[in-house]
Every structure is written in C-alpha cells, then in structure tokens.
C-alpha cells in the first residue's frame, strides 16, 4: 500500500471508529475535550506507524488501547491535582477490572450507551446552537475542522475556535456525561433532533451562496439521524425526523434543474426521486406511528412529506389531508411558518382565495418580516386570482429579500412572465 493509500485507509477507519473512541474515552476521563485530544493523539500515532506496519486487524481496538496509554502518560506528566489523578486512576482501574475477562466485548456492550451520551453532550443546552452543530459534526460525524468550515462556508479558524470554546464550556459547566432522564429527556432530545435537522436544512436549502443545495451535509445529517434511530429506537420523534429527512432527501436530485435552478416540488420529475429513500422514509414514519408518535412535530411533518411521496403525479396529491396535517401541526407547534405552509395546502385543496385568507393576517406578523417566502406565496395567490399588479409587487419584494442568487433569478423570471 502506498503512503497516501494508507492515509486514505486511516481516514476511513477514523470515520468509522472516532465517535465510538471519543465516547468510550469520555466515559473514562469524564471530559469530552480531553477525550477528543486523546483520540486525536492516537490518530497521529496511527498516521505515523500504520504506513509502515499496515492497518491492524482490529483498528478500533488498536486506537482505543493507544489512546488509553496516552491518557496514562498525560496523567503522569500533568500537574493535575492529586485528587483528580486518583479519581481518574480509579475510573481506569475499575473499568479495566469490570471488563477484565473480555475488554473488547465489554466495550462493545457499552458502546451504544456511550455514543448516546456523546450525542446528548454535543447538543447540550449550555452551548450555542452553532457550537452544538460544530461539535456534533466533529465528535459524532468524525468530520475535520476543515470539512465543517467548508460545509458552512466559514473560515476554518472560526470553526476551530467554536469547537475549542464549546469543549471548554462543557468542561467549565461540569456537564455530566449521561443520558438525561424523566422530564429532562424530552427537552434534551428535542435539542438533539433540532441540531440534526438544522444540519440537514443547511444542506437542503443552502441559506447563502450560489449553490442551491449541499448534498454532503444532507448525507451527514441523515447518517446521524439513522445512527440515533438505532441508539434510541423507542423514541418516536427520532423516527419521525429520520422519515422527514429521508423523504426530503429523496427529492434532492429532482429539485435542481440542468441549469442549476431550483425546481419546485410540483414541477419535479418524480421518476428522478430516489425511491429507495422514499421507501426508507415511509418505513421510518410507520415506525414512529407504531410507537404512538403520529402527533409529534417531526412525525407530522414527515406525514405531510409522505403525502407528496405517495402521489405518483402532482394531481394525485391529497391536499385536503395535507391541510389537515398542517392544522394538527399548528395545534402542537404553532408558528407563522406553519401557517404559511397551511395556507399553501389550503389553497391547493380549496382555491387561492381560501389560501389568501390565511396569509393576509401573516403580513403584519413580526416574525415573518423580511422572510422572502411570505411575499413569494402571497404573490403566487394574487397571480392566480388575476390581481397581477399586486402579485408583481409581492414577487419583486420576495426577490429583494432572498439571499440565494438562483432563487432570486427564479422569482424575477416569474415577475417578467406576469407582464
């Protein structure tokens, strides 16, 4: 194997092993920042040695053993207070004792729990949303700082600093490495799901720049969602979120035209939808519903997405059901955005005048001020009602508000077509 081939192989091992490695180490050293440093140390040693020795048969166990040795080395050399030293030593010994007969198997058994703890700590509420996103991609996705920076179109030092600060915040706040229980669980899980969906949306509908979508981020979010669905299989909303992402991702390649312009749902060539993802999405939704979670916010959104996925042609779309699902969603998670979507569904089921009646009160809604989709939708209703001048004004306003260049072009084309 050439050196660069070995490096690529090491990247692959890292991709597969890093989250488990960091999770296992965090349980031992009780500090996620230190755990990540130790894992990185082990990676550096692998990068040094593996090109000569080849990749070991069980690379995960090799990295773990190496990281543990580093942990002991660091402890010996560091000026950590004695008490801490003892604590750590005790943790490591007791861990090794309990796991004595078959260390690997013992680690395996705990892997799921540790990973879930790592998910919760990465999305902890003491962190800013941006920090949660960066830390999740770094610790659970195994992405490098460069990769995260590229994905979010920000300079690398910004992400690096964000991660350093996040780790320090967790350490300062002495955030325990545990899965929240009882009443806390729902809120904390919702934070985790929110972070994953935010990553997905950043990829699905790029908020800035020339690119309409960044599929790599969607893939990463989907992977995180699928992993979480296995870590917390009893949580219906996890499956609801996975269903939503699978179905939305199934349309990725159909929602960009050959010239790179966005294609709206109803104009998409449905044969280009990814039917494997559609099937997976519908299965995940079924899982959420079987767990009694049909009314969760993500399950409801995925049920709406499923209505579109099941329609073989746009004409077959069950708009009345979609409008009803949005109505349900508005009950549990009321927001002007949900209302806006409901207006679209209602207009499709019962005509543009019915839709406009829902949208008009939203014009004075402060939360939607400057949100380009409000004038986009309103302009569309007005155009359908033949109120051309008002429609043009709304669409022009929408074009002036969007940050996405391709979307702006699309809106201006529609304005031109209304002449």
């Amino acid at each position, binding site marked *: 194997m050439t050196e660069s081939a070995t490096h690529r192989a090491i990247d692959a091992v890292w991709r597969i092993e890093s989250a488990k490695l960091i999770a296992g180490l965090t349980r031992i050293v009780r500090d996620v920042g230190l755990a990540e440093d130790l894992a990185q140390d082990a990676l550096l040693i692998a990068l040094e040695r593996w090109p000569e020795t080849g990749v070991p048969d069980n690379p995960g166990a090799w990295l773990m053993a190496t990281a543990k040795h580093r942990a002991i080395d660091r402890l010996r050399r560091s000026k950590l207070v004695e008490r801490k030293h003892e604590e750590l030593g005790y943790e490591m010994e007791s861990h090794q004792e309990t796991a004595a007969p078959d260390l690997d198997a013992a680690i395996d058994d705990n892997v799921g729990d540790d990973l879930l703890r790592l998910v919760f700590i990465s999305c902890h509420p003491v962190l800013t949303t941006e920090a949660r996103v960066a830390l999740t991609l770094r610790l659970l996705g195994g992405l490098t700082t460069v990769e995260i920076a590229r994905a979010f179109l920000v300079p690398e030092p910004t992400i690096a600093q964000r991660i350093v600060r996040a780790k320090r915040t967790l350490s300062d706040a002495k955030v325990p490495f545990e899965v929240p229980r009882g009443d806390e669980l729902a809120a904390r899980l919702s934070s985790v799901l929110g972070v994953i969906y935010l990553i997905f949306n950043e990829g699905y509908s790029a908020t800035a720049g020339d690119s309409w979508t960044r599929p790599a981020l969607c893939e990463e979010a989907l*992977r995180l969602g699928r*992993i979480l669905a296995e870590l917390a299989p009893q949580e219906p909303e996890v499956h609801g979120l996975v269903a939503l992402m699978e179905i939305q991702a199934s349309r990725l390649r159909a929602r960009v035209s050959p010239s790179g312009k966005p294609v709206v749902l109803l104009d998409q060539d449905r044969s280009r939808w990814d039917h*494997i993802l559609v099937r997976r999405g519908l299965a995940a939704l079924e899982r959420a519903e079987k767990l009694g979670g049909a009314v969760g916010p993500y399950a409801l959104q995925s049920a709406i997405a499923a209505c579109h996925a099941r329609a073989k042609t746009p004409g077959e779309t069950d708009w009345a059901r979609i409008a009803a699902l949005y109505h349900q969603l508005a009950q549990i998670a009321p927001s002007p955005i949900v209302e806006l979507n409901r207006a679209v569904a209602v207009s499709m089921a019962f005509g543009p005048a019915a839709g406009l009646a829902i949208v008009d009160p939203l014009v004075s809604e402060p939360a939607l001020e400057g949100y380009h989709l409000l004038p986009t939708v309103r302009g569309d209703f007005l155009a359908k009602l033949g109120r051309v001048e008002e429609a043009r004004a709304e669409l022009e306003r929408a074009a002036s508000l969007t940050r996405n260049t391709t979307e702006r072009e699309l809106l201006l084309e529609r304005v031109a077509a209304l002449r």
Partner: protein
Amino acid sequence: MRFMILIKADKNSEAGVLPDQKLLTEMGKFNEELVKAGVMLAGEGLQPSSKGARVRFSGKNRSVIDGPFSETKELIAGFWLWQCKSKEEAIEWVKRCPNPMEGESEVEIRQVFENEDFGAEFTPELRAQEDRIRAEIAARQ
C-alpha cells in the same frame, strides 16, 4: 456517495445450499453494525441462478435464456447498497464482513454514479444535452 457491494456466488450458493447457523448469526451481527453506523441503505440475498433468466439482445431481437448459468464465480449471490464517505470506507466495512462463503470467496465494491461525479467538467449545458439525449432515446423506443 453510494456503493453497491456485490457478493459473488460459489458452488454451494448456486446449488441452493443455505448458509449455516453460525454464518447467519455472524452476518446478522454485521448487518446490525451497518445499520447502527447509518451505512446500510438496502441489501438482499439472491436465489441461485437456476431460478433466474437472462434476456439477450441482438439488434432488435430478444431471446430468453433460462438459468442456471455456468460461470459461477461471475454470478451474484447477494448485494448491499451502502452510503459511505469514500471508497476506502466501503473497503474498510467489507473487510469487517464475515466470509460469506465457505473457503474462497470474493466481494466486489462498485461506486454508484451520481450527477455530481461529473464535477465541473459536466457543465449545465452538458447536463442539458445529456437530458436531451435521454429524452431522444426514450422517444425512439
């Protein structure tokens, strides 16, 4: 990116011999790992080629050939569809797969085409052209 992982057939799989309990357990565990890692998109085992058929095209003619087919090692006994970050990740996963057959066997890794694979070389105009060609081909059939 996506990879199709092809498990090649052997004498036993072609004879319809089912995997033993040990292999089934190991394979089940491996599949579980793939699901847990968010890698697995789909996967199935295939019946022996004796239950299959081929359609041979020659110009406008089509002839049907019933299985079994002789070139055992070139036949497929099962497949997975995986979502991985790189070919190396797919290789790393295949290395962790239990040997699907007794003794010698081979598993092939093939990358699935995606539009992005054409990169900058595949400009919007070229894409449009490709779509047009596809449409023309579809119209001719």
